[in-house]
Structures are given as C-alpha cells and as structure tokens.
C-alpha cells in the first residue's frame, strides 16, 4: 500500500455554539454540526459512505438515521479523546473502506463532571456521562491521575504552580479573542494562584471547562478534495502513543508515557519539522498534559517549560508566541473555548490552515501540530498542512 502521508484530507467543517446550558440534547448539537460540515464541504448526503464518532456521544447508526444518509459501507465508534475518530477515518479512506467519512464529536455538560448540572432535570436523567470519578476514592484511575503527576512534576523539577497558570492564562487570553469560546472572563496569575484546590495541586483553572457543544468534519481522499470548494487540509502524519504501563499509578515516570511514543514517531514520520510549525495545539484538558506536550515534543527540555513560557510570553496579547511567532491553542483550548475532548483543537487547526480563522488568523499558516489526548493511555499527535 502506498504511503498514507498527505493522502487524506479534511474538506468540511461544522461546529455549534459552545455553552453551559444549550437547553438541547447532545445528539441535537452533534446533528447540527454534522449538517454544517456536510454543507461546508459542498457535498450531498448520499456521497457520505462512512461515519465515525463515539458511542459515548451518539452511535453511528443514530447519526445515519437522523440525517437520512442512504448507504454506508464503513463506520466506527472509537472511544474518546477525539483524535481516535479522525485517525480511524483517515485509515478507512486510505484503505478504501469508505470514500467520504462524516466524523463527529460532541460533549454534554454531564452531572459526573459538573456539580451544578444536577439542578437540570434533563441532565440528571441523562446520567453522569463519561470521564467520571470512580466511586472508590482510593484510586488514581480516572481523571484523578493528573493531579498527583502534576504534583510530581512540580516536586521533581522544583518549579512553582505558575507553570500551570501560564497555560491557563494563555488559553484564556486566546479565548477572549474568540467569540466562539464559552469562557472569556479575564484571568490573572493572582486569580490562578488564589483559586481553591480541587485535587492538589490542581484547581478548576487547571481542568477543562465543561460545555455543551459539538464539532464535525468531512474526511476524504486528497485526490477527491481537489474537486471540492475549500483549501484541503491534509493529514500529513498521525500517531497514537501508548506504553506497557498504561495505568495512572503505575506509569514509570514522566519520561515514560504515551507522549514520548508520539514524539518519537511524529518526528520519524513527519517531513514537517518543529521549526516549520505555524500554530501549535497541545491538548489542555489538564494543564499538566499541556506543559508536558511542550517538553515531550522537544520545544524545550524536561522541566524547562516554565522558562520557555517566560521567554515566549507576548506581553501585548498576554499569551504565548513561541519564537516570537507561533501562537498556542488560538481558540482558547479545552480550558476556555470549552472541554470537548479535543475536537475543537482540530476545528481551530483546520480554520487556521484554511485561512478562515478571522481575527485569530495566523498570517500564512501552513503547518499545524495537534497533540491531543492525555499521558497515560491515549496520547496522540496529528500534523496537518495546507498549501493555501
């Protein structure tokens, strides 16, 4: 089989409002994003022959039924985070299992991650959702695992919590410039440092902001993309990374996680190098994940992110500009655009590479690196490019 590099493209994009209270079902939001993506791609529904989402959001057959898509020959419902859906679709198109895949994701502010959600009777009936904490408190399994590793990071490298605060402020500053973002209240380091602890050393500012919202993408061959209206965004290299100790409390150390597997493979597979990147999307569902993406991918050494952030801080916009040039999570990330397990990082990357990011547009952006997922068992990396 021929090399998959640059052979599959994202040709359609759809999103919905991100909000705390949509007053709608998650399925309704996903369908809105799907319809928008199909129209954006300039295709008819009967051209879609593949579907890829997550059973935890809405199963593929329900999307097909609700949208009246007549015939599909391939579908998959991998688990979150979102890079799995896009990478599976890429593989399916390249293998010929499907020609045009509708890829979708959505999040619903469920009672398991948002205590205030219990006041809404529809949310209460919908149940706790996913990524919930275990009922047994004596475990680091579940999202709890990021807190002790954040603490180990601070202790091991002897840095202060400000390193995490800078990630939160960067995301917030970018969100303030993005009307789509759900959380746009200014955030200062004083605000960050004085917030109450949720799971030490992490506060609510270190954790994604739960929203109702959805994103959708149309994925097809690059060959076919050339006949469609938008500048195609090519999937240049895509990697999943996981180790043989994929348990939150058994991971050997911060230098032996899925992130290192991703970095090794990304720089082996990609012709686009670190210095070629125009906009960077390290997943920020927890600030510690984001900090470690900079280090694992080699933007700086282990434990050096705080110094990198200081060297890269753009005082005028109160955010990161790597090398004085490359912004990070221009949409506001999971922390401020909204927590949707990473689909919004890809949405913003596509907008940037199409040149349709509005006031947030990075001039001449051609290369975007998305580093989604977490550290323990679902790390990922996707290099996207366009030729404008």
């Amino acid at each position, binding site marked *: 089989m021929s090399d998959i590099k640059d052979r599959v493209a994202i040709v359609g994009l759809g999103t919905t409002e991100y909000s705390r209270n949509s007053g709608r079902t998650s399925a309704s939001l996903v369908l809105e994003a799907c319809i928008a993506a199909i129209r954006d791609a300039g295709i008819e529904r009967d051209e879609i022959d593949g579907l890829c989402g997550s059973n935890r959001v809405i199963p593929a057959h329900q999307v097909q039924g609700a949208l009246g898509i007549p015939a599909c020959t391939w579908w998959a419902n991998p688990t979150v985070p979102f890079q799995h859906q896009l990478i599976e679709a890429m593989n399916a198109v390249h293998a010929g299992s499907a020609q045009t895949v509708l890829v979708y994701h959505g999040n619903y502010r469920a009672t398991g991650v948002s205590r205030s959600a219990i006041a809404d009777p529809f949310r209460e009936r919908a149940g706790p959702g996913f990524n919930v904490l275990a*009922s047994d*408190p*004596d475990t*680091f399994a579940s999202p*709890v695992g990021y807190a002790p590793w954040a603490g*180990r990071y601070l202790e091991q490298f002897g840095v202060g919590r400000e390193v995490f605060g800078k990630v939160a402020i960067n995301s917030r500053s970018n969100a303030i410039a993005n009307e789509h973002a759900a959380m746009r209240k200014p955030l200062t380091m004083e605000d960050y440092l004085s917030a109450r602890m949720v*799971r030490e050393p992490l506060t609510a500012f270190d954790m994604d902001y739960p929203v109702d919202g959805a994103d959708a993408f149309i994925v097809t061959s690059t060959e076919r993309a050339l006949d469609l209206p938008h500048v195609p965004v090519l999937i240049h290299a895509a990697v999943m990374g996981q180790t043989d100790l994929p348990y939150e*409390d*058994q991971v050997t150390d911060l230098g032996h996680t899925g992130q290192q597997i991703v970095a090794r493979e990304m720089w082996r597979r990609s012709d686009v190098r670190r210095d070629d990147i125009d906009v960077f999307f390290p997943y920020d569902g927890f600030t510690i994940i984001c900090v470690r993406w900079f280090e694992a991918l080699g933007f700086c050494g282990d434990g050096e992110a705080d110094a990198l952030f200081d060297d890269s801080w753009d005082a005028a916009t109160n955010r990161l500009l790597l090398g004085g040039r490359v912004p990070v999570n221009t949409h506001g990330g999971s922390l401020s655009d909204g927590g949707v397990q990473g689909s919004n990082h890809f949405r913003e990357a596509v907008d940037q590479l199409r040149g349709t990011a509005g006031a947030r547009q990075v001039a001449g952006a051609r290369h975007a690196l998305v580093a989604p997922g977490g550290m323990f068992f679902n790390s990922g990396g996707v290099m996207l490019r366009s030729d404008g």
Partner: protein
Amino acid sequence: MSEAATDDEVLAAYPNTRIDQDNVEHYRGRLERRLLVNRCAECRLWHQPPRAVCPRCWSSDVRATEVSGRGTVALHTVLHLAAPSAGVAGGGGYPLAAVDLVEQDGLRFTAPIVDMPEPRIGDDVELTWITRDGSPVPAFRPAGAA
C-alpha cells in the same frame, strides 16, 4: 484464624468497588488486614492492578501474595472534591498516595495516607489499616510510626 470470607461477604464489605474474579482475593485479604498483590508463581513478577495473566511470561498462575507494606511515596495528592463515597466525608481533604513497594522496582500501590501532613516524594512509609464504612482499608503512614 477464622475461615476465609466468602465471595458474598467480600462483595458486601466493599459495596463501592468493582470487585470481580481477578481482584477478589485482594479484597478477601483486606478483611484479614493482609495487603495482597498479584505475583506470578512461575517468573515471580509482581504486578498491579490485579490481572489474570502475568504481563511478562503470560502464565495464568498468578497468586495474590502478601507484601510487607513498606515503601516510599511516589505520587501524592489531596482530594477536595472527590466523588461521593460511603464513609468519606464530602468536601474534606482526602490525602492519597501511590507508594513504590520494596518488593519490586516500580510496583506501586495506591491508598490513603495518614499522619503525613506534608508528604514528599521519597518519604519512607509503612502499612497501616483504617476502617471505613465498617470495613478495613489499607493505608500508609510514616515509617517507624508504630
């Protein structure tokens, strides 16, 4: 010693935990205040969390085996907004640590910590037992506290 607890007794003693055939021996051990960790009877490798097969030699002769409970702190946190659990006060700080057990490099067990207001990575700890909702729960305290 009295007879070992039945499966039904173990399930009843830990109602909030997903107990199955792969980890029930560990929880049976808790009722006798013995900390049991899975060890391969063929290649002698310990592993956590409990699984039915040794990850190194793939033997299924894996036995829940008592550990000393001595080790050093590898990871720690305090949960302030933990999920509601029977026997745990809501909202209060709940200190939790993963301890590198002396039995094998990198073998960790996660449990509450007691009498450690400012834990540090590398602190020497030993096993103790607390009671929660009427059942024994393993915990760690500073070494030599007894």
